[in-house]
């Protein structure tokens, strides 16, 4: 594919992104509201705009995390949700919430929550890797991820058992919730996204080498194990910061890389960037649906992505014979 064609596609994706963010400012609590100028400034600048941008950033982080996971483990079904890192992040959030007082979020607690989510996400992937005895068997890795997810969510239920007053807060994290995103949260996610993208682009030769097979990658003389660990850390960073603001959002990380695979034509760097953009578009689009399907009622965005993403995954499984090596 010639380069200018790629730029055109990038431009188109960015245009779609901007249109969706604009739509996010128009879709309100009472359904679609075209009287743009009459909308209260507070609602526009303090609620709708941070929410739309926040949903986009969280989606971008998850899309990137999904692309890293799929490249790193050479597994088309890897995603933060299935690998146990999302539930690990949620457990981190739960523990930090448990330690701080409820309802009083300052910037300091926000950093605490993000830090906890990052640590939890890292713990989740590493535990899944340990349980699977490495990443050589894709099937075992995915199963381990699912098991870790179950154990971590049980631990989370235990937290609400110990602190029933946390139930409301944790519940909104478990279902995936974009409605309370603040500008501070956007700042956090923006920083995380920039750091993650820069690091991943820097490390993308590893992913390219890995796509040629483990042995070939070794012959290139790269310190594979260390670089892999670094990529896992980036994966945890992206997942953790997304979960800390929006809670559990299923399948965005899985679907985004698949949707752009045929555009990127196998080039790792392009694939990573495009997955990130596609993730943003997916989550923001789902958020718009969540706001408007039953307006003025609003359903948690996690439910929308789970239904859409789950359906897409089934379609993918039927259409392509995804090679899962046992």
């Amino acid at each position, binding site marked *: 594919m010639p380069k200018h064609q790629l730029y055109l596609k990038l431009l188109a994706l960015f245009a779609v992104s901007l249109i969706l963010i604009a739509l996010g400012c128009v879709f309100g*609590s009472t359904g679609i509201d075209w009287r743009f100028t009459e909308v209260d400034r507070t609602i526009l600048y303090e609620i709708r705009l941070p929410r739309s941008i926040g949903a986009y950033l969280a989606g971008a982080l998850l899309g990137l995390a999904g692309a890293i996971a799929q490249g790193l483990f050479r597994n088309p079904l890897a995603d933060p949700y299935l690998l146990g890192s999302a539930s690990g992040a949620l457990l981190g959030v739960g523990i930090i919430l448990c330690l701080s007082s409820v309802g009083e979020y300052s910037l300091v607690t926000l950093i605490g929550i993000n830090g906890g989510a990052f640590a939890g996400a890292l713990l989740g992937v590493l535990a899944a890797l340990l349980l699977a005895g490495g990443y050589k068997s894709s099937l075992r890795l995915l199963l381990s991820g699912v098991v870790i997810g179950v154990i971590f969510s049980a631990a989370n239920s235990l937290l609400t058992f110990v602190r029933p007053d946390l139930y409301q807060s944790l519940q909104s994290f478990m*279902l995936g919730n974009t409605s309370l995103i603040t500008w501070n949260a956007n700042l956090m996610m923006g920083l995380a996204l920039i750091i993650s993208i820069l690091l991943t682009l820097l490390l993308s030769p590893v992913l390219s080498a890995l796509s040629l097979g483990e042995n070939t990658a070794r012959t290139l003389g790269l310190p594979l194990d260390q670089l892999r660990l670094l990529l896992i850390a980036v994966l945890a960073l992206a997942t953790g910061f997304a979960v800390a603001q929006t809670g559990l959002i299923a399948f965005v990380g899985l679907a985004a890389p698949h949707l752009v695979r045929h555009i990127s034509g196998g080039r790792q760097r392009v694939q990573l960037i495009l997955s990130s953009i596609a993730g943003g578009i997916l989550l923001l689009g789902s958020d718009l649906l969540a706001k408007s399907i039953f307006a003025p009622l609003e359903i948690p965005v996690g439910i929308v992505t789970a239904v859409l993403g789950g359906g897409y995954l089934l379609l993918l499984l039927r259409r392509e014979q995804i090679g899962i090596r046992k």
Partner: protein
Amino acid sequence: MCGFLGISIAAVEVIDDRGKTISLASPPQRLISLLPSLTESICALGKCNHLVGVDRFSNWPLSLQNLPKLGGMSDSNLEAIVQLKPDLVMVDKSSPIISRLEDLRIPVMAFEIKTMADEERTLKKLDLALGSKEAGRVWNQIQAEITRANKQLDGSQKNMRVYFEVNAAPYAAGRSSFIGELLTRLELNNIIPESLGPFPKINPEFVVQAKPQIIMLSETGVTDMKKRPGWADIPAVRENRICTFKKEQSDVIVRPGPRMGEAALILSQCIAEKSLSSK
């Protein structure tokens, strides 16, 4: 002139259950309540007409049904709340929306109502904040109703062992919950010991062993309850002394609000009826 101004800007300060001081220059005119028991308390104090929006579960008094519904506990609709331009929002202390509302400079009063004493305190604070002078009257009425409910029961009905099931998990009403306090005021013997806390999740076997003479639960749970292994032998089930509550009655009983007196009357009435029919 200055004296006149001084009077007109005299502010009311109320400390809410987070320990936060809320200053109100004048009694708020556009109220939002995001908790059914708070909604009912506000209305009992005669300020129902100042409510401009409520949560999804607030359904009493009936005059509320045309107000905008602003979501539930964990999914309050922030934008709809802001759009209503409230001058005070009343919420449960554990609601995740509090910090967001305060970011947007909307005054929030948070409450934690778990016991009857909590409700008395809540009524007083609301009285202060809303500029009503009704808390004493409302509280006295609740107390009078509870006393009346107590008098409906005779000596044989009092001291009966009672099990109140909050939901089918099963969660029970412990002695330190407001429901448990009502049972105590009716001089009934709650099978749940004090040490288990307000709403403990219990092992069904515990209930079988405690042999309650009365079981209280919502209408929807009764069929499944009777089918639980071993429960057919519980005296209350065997002698059919089961108090079931319709949705409207359950709403009265499970909300720690101004209708607690009415709740006591529902409980005592059922016990009186059940022990008559089984005699």
